[in-house]
């Protein structure tokens, strides 16, 4: 599966997941999310951008079914099972006692699939992140960037309908982060996944996504959506283009507004 056809207009893509009127209140008085409405469509690369405490991670946890909304609904289009979701956390979150291949195999293993039955998929996923030669290595033998690649391979090995990424590159150095940004986009082109990406970084969100949802804090809510209509594939040239700078300004203004509103 690939997105060989030019990007369809955002509103023409079929929906994957819809959040409507989602509120999340902790301890009866801390409003983490207020009236969150989001529709994620197939093929979207959506960034959630906002200051600390704006509920980005809470929203992600609700989508992942780790938290239940206080009010409102989360609904998947069509039949939904556990294989629909892949997750990448801020830390690589690998099992240190298992090899790279065993780590990537985990989502299948938890669904009762034998390794021999899905070996090809596991190796294919490792190849896509450029680590097929490291299948028998243990996580501690890998660099931070390589561990994150394993984590990405694990999230996409089952080809889920939606991949959630919670500031996955925040802890990496800038060179590695840029490289992984490029590779993530290349990967998305190849397998055509749908991504929700939480980030603090305006630059990262503009480079990666076609939709940036800017959120404000106290209470956490959506302030505005910024569309980045630059076509994929985006390469290093895009990073230095005037178009990129303009989008960054727009996203940055929205973020400042979000911070200003919160203050």
């Amino acid at each position, binding site marked *: 599966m690939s997105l060989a056809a030019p990007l369809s207009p955002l509103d023409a893509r079929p929906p994957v997941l819809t959040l409507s009127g989602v509120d999340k209140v902790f301890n009866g008085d801390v409003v983490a999310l207020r009236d969150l409405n989001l529709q994620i469509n197939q093929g979207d690369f959506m960034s959630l951008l906002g200051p600390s405490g704006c509920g980005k991670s809470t929203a992600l946890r609700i989508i992942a*079914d*780790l938290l239940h909304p206080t009010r409102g609904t989360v609904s998947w289009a069509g039949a939904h099972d*556990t294989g629909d*979701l892949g997750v990448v*956390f801020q830390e690589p979150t690998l099992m*240190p*006692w*298992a090899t790279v291949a065993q780590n990537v195999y985990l989502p299948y293993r*938890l669904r009762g699939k034998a390794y021999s039955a899905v070996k090809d998929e596991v190796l294919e996923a490792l190849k896509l992140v450029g680590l097929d030669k490291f299948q028998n290595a243990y996580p501690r033998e890998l660099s931070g960037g390589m561990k994150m690649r394993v984590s990405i391979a694990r999230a996409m090995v089952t080809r889920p309908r939606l991949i959630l990424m919670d500031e996955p590159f925040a802890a990496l150095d800038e060179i590695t982060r840029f490289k992984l940004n490029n590779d993530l986009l290349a990967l998305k082109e190849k397998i055509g996944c749908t991504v929700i990406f939480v980030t603090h970084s305006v630059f990262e969100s503009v480079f990666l996504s076609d939709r940036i949802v800017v959120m404000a804090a106290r209470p956490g809510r959506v302030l505005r959506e910024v569309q980045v209509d630059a076509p994929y594939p985006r390469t290093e040239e895009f990073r230095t283009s005037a178009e990129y700078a303009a989008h960054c300004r727009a996203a940055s203004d929205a973020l400042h507004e979000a911070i200003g509103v919160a203050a």
Partner: protein
Amino acid sequence: MSIADPTLLTDAPDADELARLRARRLEKIGKWSLPVIVMALGIFFWDRIVVWNEIPHYILPGPGRVLDTLIADWGILYEASLLTARTTILALLLAVLGGAGLAILFNQSKMVEMSFYPYAVILQVTPVVSIAPLIFIYVDSKTAGMLLCAWIVAFFPVLSSTTLGLNSVDHNLRDLFRIYKANRWQKLTMLQLPSALPYFLGGLKIAGGLSLIGAVVAELVAGTGGVGAGLAARIQEAGYRLNIARMFAALSLIAAMGVFIFAALSILSHALLHKWHESALTREG
């Protein structure tokens, strides 16, 4: 100084590097040789003190006499060693089963943990020497009584360290398993048990030493004399007869047994962890 000078262009180790290599080599040799030298000196002065002061052997036998006794009494001591070793190893095995089993049970049910954990602590903090006489009143079989004594001392470190390990799962991995809707069994076997392994092995090393202590205490309290007595009972018995050399010989066997258990458990721990765990990692520099 000219750049064309070829000696300046080689990557020969510099002074720092040489000093570091030398220090490391010395450390490697010293790690083994120093304890051996200390032991040799200790034995030498022990011998000299006995000879110079003409201390009678029923007060302090020299090392030569202890060695002679070890050889002469080997038949008795070997049999006693087997008995003590059997109690110790069985107690350790039961401590592993009981300690790890209870830890898993406590981990699966908060109610069970809240109900019984305090009593595990009470059992642990009550000195075994004070419980042992009661045990031998109620338990007919001496073997079973001794096992029970040794088990009471040894199981707690396994229980507490395994409990800690089972609760020390990386919270993101825990979330990941929840997202993938892993069931209880999968979570236990694929996530919690491997996470707990390093903790368990730490507890096991302590339990190894404690089960030997428990076995020795049990023998002393049980007071099994004559045929079928363990090393500790032999020490006690030899003490009554002022056979001090045999006391030392039996003591050295108990110490050797303790060292052996510790070494065996260290090797086991290394074998299980060296591929992935940080504790088995040696860093350069």
